[in-house]
């Protein structure tokens, strides 16, 4: 379990840093151009690392299922919905609501054993933890003056 948490921490760290780097790109480049560029470099980086570590095995797609090829489009959904929400209700509300949705959805996925997830029984600690995280993200993004557009 510790390993899993360490991986998650690492992932979150890189998401944070990447967000900052992407902000720099988004300042000069239009949204979808930036997105395409960022994802393309990510894909190429994965290819390079994969080649170095696994060799040509990186192209072993034999067990891929047809629908799986489209899963990558969800990332587009993330970016489009985030951009649109930020435009309509501002970054603060977007992040708070988004995080609540993200955590609640994750919990539902776990409880229902969605796709490859092992089923988890809902305990009161999960609900308490979720509520605390919601309170926490609200506090974190709290702004005394609502000046967003």
């Amino acid at each position, binding site marked *: 379990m510790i390993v899993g948490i360490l991986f998650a921490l690492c992932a979150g760290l890189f998401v944070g840093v990447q967000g900052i780097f992407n902000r*720099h790109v988004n300042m000069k480049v239009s949204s979808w151009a930036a997105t395409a560029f960022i994802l393309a470099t990510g894909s190429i980086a994965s290819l390079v690392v994969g080649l170095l570590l696994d060799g040509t095995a990186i192209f072993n*797609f034999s067990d891929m299922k047809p629908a799986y*090829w489209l899963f990558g489009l969800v990332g587009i*959904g993330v970016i489009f919905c985030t951009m649109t929400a930020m435009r309509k209700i501002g970054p603060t509300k977007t992040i708070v609501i988004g995080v609540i949705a993200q955590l609640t959805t994750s919990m539902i996925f776990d409880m229902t054993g969605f796709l490859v997830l092992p089923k988890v029984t809902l305990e009161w600690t999960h609900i308490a933890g979720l509520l605390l995280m919601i309170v926490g993200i609200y506090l974190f993004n709290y702004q005394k003056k609502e000046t967003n557009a």
Partner: protein
Amino acid sequence: MPGIVFAILSGFFISLQNVLNATIGTVVSTWSTAMITQAVGATGALLLYVAFREPSFSTLKQVKTRYLFGGSFGAVVVATSVFAVTYVGAAMTNATMLLAQLATVIIIEMFGLFDMPKQPIARHQLLGLTVMVVGALLITL
């Protein structure tokens, strides 16, 4: 109302993305997963770039070179998040990633790293983070 719907959807999609990536990760290697999902995403983004008739890619030249490598972090993000979801499930992965993400941004802004304006951590942010850590621990244990 629509704005709220899009915000909810963005959170839903982020969570969904982690599970979908982990699902692909069961049939191909982690780096293949990262390569495929981002390539598909890039293609979709490119199509939308054309559809929305956005200005040329040439403005990329104006970005400081080091920040152009930000995309490559995506390889690490996908790989590590796939591992994490496989080991500890969706809720724990998402909660932990969020904490790490927020803490990282706070630290970057505290020290003014990566050409970001220096911004000391506000008390409500520290409080919010602490509450979130407790919440994440409850979800985990």
